């Protein structure tokens, strides 16, 4: 470094008056290439022109949170050396069928540009994008270095597309297909991996329903010695699981198939011993239809588990309790509410290191069910797990007092998503609104980044949020509030707000327009079934030309009503691929 420092001194002397960075570009780029966080990189790029350029040349991964906020051409122009892209498309409420079909977010236009500008692209991670089989095939043949494909909540493709990937991507290390709207035409795609192919490290096809060619899978797993993540689908039986694990004891993440096949004692023991050989396992999921009697086979593999996903296994409280006794290191736990409060008590007792808990409803659409979890379970967990900072909790009853206790026990919440499943339900003991509950959350949890509210809520909840939730980035609201004032409080407070999604609330044009200046600092706003009118939206669009204001009309609704509004900032201008049901204002 000796010669470098003298060179630096020389250039510093000569440029003293210029006061700009005198790092040679290559050095600066080298330093900046170590920066991984895209937010840090954004900050860096704002320092000065030199840094902007150094940053853009050294960036290899680009994260685009809203595919319509920018165009692929703009991205390619700014970042010439990208190898990895993460793209998100549809608004989150599309997960719940609130977004019309053919809404957009098609990946193809992006792929065409990438094929031209980033021929060495290695990774593509998509969330809520539309991707066709043709696009998958195009991807497979256009990028010879392609390594990792991750599709989450995407739709528009079938297993034929996966076959194309398997056939052509010679360097594939990751194929991660999660929770997509996939047209499952059968499991033959797995056989498309050539015999010579050995590089796969991550394989997740838990989403698929049809039988796969087990023989092909077994051979594939056998020859991919670096495989560390394997998530099977339900069609894989226990016996087949055991065979796979024999050739892959090094797995760090395992998603089992169906956990309910009838086993002989001998087969059970084989399974148990094979599982106990999996010393690296830190994540376990799958366990479809898990039968209590087979769970003990897992115990030896659980000692290092940090993430246990039981959200497809309808366990009872006792079964869960016994299992958790073997998982002392657990940090993340996803369960179904079949475990009930008693199961959650066991969580509190056995998992002191727990940081994340998600409780999903087994029967969300059935009110007659009196099972499920209540506020008691949540409170029990909070007493036993002080490190809890992420919770997603579906329940049928809650009280303000319980939530106050919970956040007192766990003040470090960053993500608090509470879903009281009956819309507009008050505190079931006092019959009051749940305002004080969420007030307690925002007052106590100063690190709160994400909040989902539910239950009977007046504008007071939103006053609290606006006043106290200084780090809040994402807010989801449904069936809440009394007047425009509620939404105005949020838009007026919450300096870090990026995503606001609202449905079925009495917020109208005044509320919408109060956020005029705010929306450019946010990623997006969603409002559906509120009181916003077309005129309000047109006014917004007129005043803020750098926002895209899109309205989705429903058949048969009043012409003046803006049924669903999606507003987002964009440097790409209004989009041109919107279907007829989406009006761009």
């Amino acid at each position, binding site marked *: 470094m000796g010669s470098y420092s003298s060179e630096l001194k020389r250039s510093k002397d000569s440029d003293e008056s210029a006061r700009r960075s005198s790092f040679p570009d290559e050095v600066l780029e080298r330093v900046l290439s170590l920066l991984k966080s895209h937010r840090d990189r954004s900050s860096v790029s704002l320092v000065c022109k030199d840094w902007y350029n150094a940053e853009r040349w050294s960036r290899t991964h680009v994260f685009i949170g809203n595919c319509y906020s920018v165009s692929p051409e703009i991205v390619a122009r700014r970042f010439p050396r990208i190898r990895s892209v993460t793209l998100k498309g549809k608004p989150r409420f599309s*997960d719940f069928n*609130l977004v019309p*079909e053919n*809404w957009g977010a098609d990946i193809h236009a992006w792929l065409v540009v990438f094929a031209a500008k980033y021929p060495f692209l290695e990774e593509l991670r998509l969330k809520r994008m539309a991707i066709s089989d043709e696009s998958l095939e195009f991807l497979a043949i256009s990028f010879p270095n392609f390594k990792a494909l991750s599709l989450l909540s995407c739709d528009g493709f079938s297993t034929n597309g996966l076959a194309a990937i398997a056939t052509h991507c010679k360097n594939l290390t990751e194929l991660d297909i999660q929770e997509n709207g996939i047209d499952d035409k059968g499991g033959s795609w797995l056989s498309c991996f050539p015999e010579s192919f050995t590089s796969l490290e991550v394989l997740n096809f838990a989403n698929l329903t049809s039988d796969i060619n087990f023989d092909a899978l077994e051979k594939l797993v056998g020859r991919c010695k670096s495989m560390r993540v394997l998530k099977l689908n339900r069609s894989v039986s226990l016996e087949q699981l055991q065979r796979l694990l024999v050739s892959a004891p090094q797995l760090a993440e395992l998603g089992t198939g169906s956990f309910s096949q009838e086993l002989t004692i001998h087969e059970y023991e084989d399974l148990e011993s094979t599982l106990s050989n999996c010393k690296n396992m830190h994540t376990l999921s799958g366990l479809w239809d898990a039968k209590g009697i087979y769970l003990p086979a897992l115990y030896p593999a659980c000692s290092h588990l940090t993430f246990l996903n039981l959200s497809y296994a309808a366990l009872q409280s006792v079964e869960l309790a016994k299992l958790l006794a073997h998982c002392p290191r657990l940090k993340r736990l996803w369960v179904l509410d079949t475990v009930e409060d008693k199961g959650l008590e066991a969580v509190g007792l056995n998992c002191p290191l727990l940081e994340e808990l998600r409780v999903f409803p087994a*029967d969300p659409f059935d009110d007659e069910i009196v099972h499920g979890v209540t506020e008691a379970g949540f409170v029990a967990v909070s007493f036993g797990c002080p490190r809890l900072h992420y919770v997603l909790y579906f329940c049928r009853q809650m009280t303000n007092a319980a939530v106050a206790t919970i956040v007192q026990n766990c003040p470090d919440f960053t993500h608090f998503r509470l879903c009281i*499943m009956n819309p507009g339900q008050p505190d079931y003991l006092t019959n009051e609104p749940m305002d004080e509950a969420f007030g307690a959350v925002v007052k106590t949890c100063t690190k709160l980044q994400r909040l989902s509210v539910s239950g009977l809520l007046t504008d007071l909840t939103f006053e609290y949020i606006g006043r106290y939730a200084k780090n809040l980035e994402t807010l989801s609201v449904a069936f809440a509030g009394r007047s425009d004032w509620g939404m105005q409080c949020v838009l007026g407070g919450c300096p870090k707000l990026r995503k606001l999604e609202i449905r079925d609330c009495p917020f109208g044009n005044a509320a919408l327009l109060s956020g005029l200046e705010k929306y450019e600092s946010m990623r997006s706003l969603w409002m559906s*079934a509120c009181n916003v009118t077309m005129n309000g939206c047109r006014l917004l669009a007129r005043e803020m030309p750098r926002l895209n204001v899109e309205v989705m009309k429903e058949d048969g609704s009043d012409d003046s009503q803006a049924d669903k509004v999606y507003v987002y900032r964009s440097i790409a201008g209004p989009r041109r691929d919107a279907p007829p049901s989406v009006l761009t204002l």
Partner: protein
Amino acid sequence: MEKSYDDTNTEKSGLRLKDTELRLGLPGSESPEREEHDQNVLSLKSFVSGAKRGFSDALDGGGKWVFSGGSGGGSEGLFSPRRGGNNNGGNDLSGSDSGLGGPVLKDGVAPKPLVVQEKKSQVAAGNGNTAPASKAQVVGWPPIRSFRKNTMASHPPKNDNDDDNAEAKFGSGCLYVKVSMDGAPYLRKVDLKIYGGYKELSSALEKMFSCFTIGQCGSHGVSSRDVLSESRLIDLLHGSEYVLTYEDKDGDWMLVGDVPWEMFTNCCKRLRIMKSTEAIGLAPRAMEKCKTRT
């Protein structure tokens, strides 16, 4: 555990006035999906009129051996999500997205009508919007991803009330029912719990019984799947040779596909692939049964 139609349909005209008085939306708002129901109604009507009804009639725009009604485009027919915003390819079985009206705002500040489906007096219970719950159901609520919704719907976790599974082998693990096909030398058994919906069941049965059908159309000795393409089998079925029926808890033989999948798996005791010549007269009974329950 079976939710009777009676409960559901007494709710159909109304908003359920529960403890929660907070409501949104105007009752009586019609849902666009009505036209879809009308399609179903039409197809059932043609059935009643005695027209020989193969599976092709059970859907709009045939092509596949799918049961009862459909909005095409791969959605699961009766239970398509409200928006038709079916982001999930074929398997979206969200009977949950149907609604019977919605909450109304207490203060009279009535905002947009809630996006629900108002169910008026519809003809057949076959329009399976009557989701198991007896309460008004709201589109996209609770906010559960479609994938999870469908998975849990098709494989409801068993709590205590599991006794209804007549042929259940293991208890809570699976639900095996016998499947017989007219003319086939032996029966098969299928586990209803492993299927996500009618579409999957139908493809599985197609595969299972295709060998028999080949024999019937005279392709002797040709039983390999390679030769019989799926479309050919469908053509055979399209030719309305067979109809899939099931025996329910009451011992009645019903046409498969009329009721929501979960309800079907709960009350199906056995399946029979019946020659359509024998199936005439089946539907009117099915209709009647639905009427009495409606």
